[in-house]
């Protein structure tokens, strides 16, 4: 057949040295544009992560240099230490205290701030204000609020005739107190993203619901929440991850105490690595943290594909 004879040999025929900038080597150009990111990720993320895994398998001297390969011994020691068990428990509880309540609070605020009433811009700004608050500043304020003798919390309690509480010094209350402060700190960010999600919902859906004459509650359940589900899902994951990574408020409010009741994982890593100079233990914990977050993100990807409603 004629066509068969004329079949092109697309990538061999032309070897003139005319290949230049545009059509020529997109690979080189692409790499050049990506180079800064790749180098930085390599040096400050991938390499240290690998190094952390490597260190977690070694006995480390106080200078941070690996001495002897010990396999999973660091992990075994970790699981057997009551200190780590307390830390794991504290982390779990902390996540449990902060994530659901924080989400619900932010959702309520976002729904309120999505009402179209006069001056709503002002309220939106107020609700998002904690996003501009640093962990350090917020923690200092809350520290004062929790102050047993002059802080507002105990004054409120005594005002309604209850006995005062050692918010940050009582192992029973310390973690909850830090959690409350944390919820407040994170609300601004969560609120902003949820509000953005709400505003992305097609207004025509509400208009058609209004024509159908359904109740607000019905609209919330049948339109708002399903349409918001991708955003909700995203903030859940981000809140979870953030919660695992809590550090600043612990460092300022409790330093992991009292009786290690607020010694959440990142604080524990910090203490082991930079105060106790036990890098092996710190690395093992860091590896565990990595896997926790890995599981959360992998679950996110798996679930986003299926369960969540996208438009």
């Amino acid at each position, binding site marked *: 057949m004629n066509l068969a004879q004329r079949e092109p040999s697309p990538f061999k025929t032309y070897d003139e040295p005319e290949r230049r*900038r*545009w059509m020529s080597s*997109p*690979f080189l150009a692409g*790499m050049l*544009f*990506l180079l*800064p*990111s*790749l180098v*930085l*990720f390599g040096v*400050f993320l991938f*390499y240290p992560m690998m*190094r*952390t895994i490597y*260190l977690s398998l070694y006995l480390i001297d106080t200078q*941070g240099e690996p001495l002897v390969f010990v396999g999973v011994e660091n992990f075994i020691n970790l699981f057997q230490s009551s200190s780590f068990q307390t830390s794991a428990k504290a982390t779990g509880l902390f996540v449990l205290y902060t994530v659901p309540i924080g989400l619900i609070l932010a959702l309520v*605020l976002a729904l*309120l701030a999505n*009402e179209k*009433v006069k001056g709503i811009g002002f309220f939106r*700004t*107020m609700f*998002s*204000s904690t*996003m*501009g608050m*640093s*962990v*350090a*500043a*917020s923690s*200092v*304020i809350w520290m*004062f609020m929790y102050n047993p003798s*002059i802080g*507002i919390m105990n*004054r409120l309690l005594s005002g309604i005739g209850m006995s005062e509480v050692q918010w940050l010094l009582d192992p029973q209350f310390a973690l909850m107190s830090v959690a409350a402060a944390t919820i407040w700190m994170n*609300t601004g960010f969560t609120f902003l*993203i949820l509000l*953005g*999600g709400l*505003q992305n919902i097609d207004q025509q859906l509400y208009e058609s619901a209004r024509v159908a004459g359904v109740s607000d509650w019905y609209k919330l359940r049948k339109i708002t929440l399903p349409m918001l589900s*991708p*955003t909700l899902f*995203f903030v859940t994951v981000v809140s979870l*991850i953030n919660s695992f*990574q809590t*550090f*600043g408020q612990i*460092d*300022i409010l409790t330093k992991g105490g009292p009786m290690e009741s607020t010694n959440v994982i990142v604080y524990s*890593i910090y203490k082991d690595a*930079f105060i106790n100079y036990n890098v092996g233990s710190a690395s093992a914990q*860091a*590896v565990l*943290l990595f896997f926790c977050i*890995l599981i959360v993100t*992998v679950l996110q990807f798996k679930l986003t594909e299926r369960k969540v409603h996208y438009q």
Partner: protein
Amino acid sequence: MSLTKKIVTYTLLASFTLIMMFPILYAFLISFMQGGEVLQGKLWPESFSFDNYISAFEKVPLLTYLLNSLIVSTVIMIGVLAVSSLAAFAFVFINFKGRDILFYLFISTMMIPWEAAMVPNFQTVQALGWLNSYAGLTIPFFALAFGTFLLRQQFKTIPHELYEASQVSGISRFRFFYKIALPVSKTSMVTLGIYSFLTAWNMYLWPLLVTNNEAVRTVQIGLKQMQSQEISTEWGVVMAGVVIVILPTLVLLFLGQKRLQEGLTQGAIK
């Protein structure tokens, strides 16, 4: 909207505003109080004097800290914008082998908690001699997957024909990048700028690790230092410090709240 519903809405809005804003207002009020008033547990200062602010600047080198924070945040902001926009441009406009793999690599960076890598990072920075330096405080934060995704979404809205038209006129890739792609994406750049500035200004753990002298210490660490030194006695001064630290970011947030909200939603949800 019915009147009842309006009243309910406003009541709810007002009470939540009060709850959310209370700690900030509280700090603000305390910062004007004399030592005695604070100890009595008052809510409203007798007079608004700036004594606490003056002594805040006297007791710790707050001005140096503020300047350090400003430098660090600005440098990180510029770094993030430059590095992210370059990467995002490659992902949108350059079609090369292995692009998808690299994109997954970028996604995977979001799975690595930065805290899990902090010990070796500290060692790296130490080995580079970057402890107590702006370099050590800023450079590790230039690459940001979130920033790349946000700008990638933005660049994707630029019609591909613009790129082709400039190919026909013979404009180089890089010139198209900074003459067309960047100016057209001004809004997203501003959003990312605000975001990275805020995060950098509020950074706590890393500056705590890599600074141990006043020359480069940021204002957040300064706050911790203040609080641990002054704790029992001069809460008014500490709160004055708090107000000074939060004021720049609050102003930035109030100005850019709408933009930030749009940008965060855009970068987060495709």
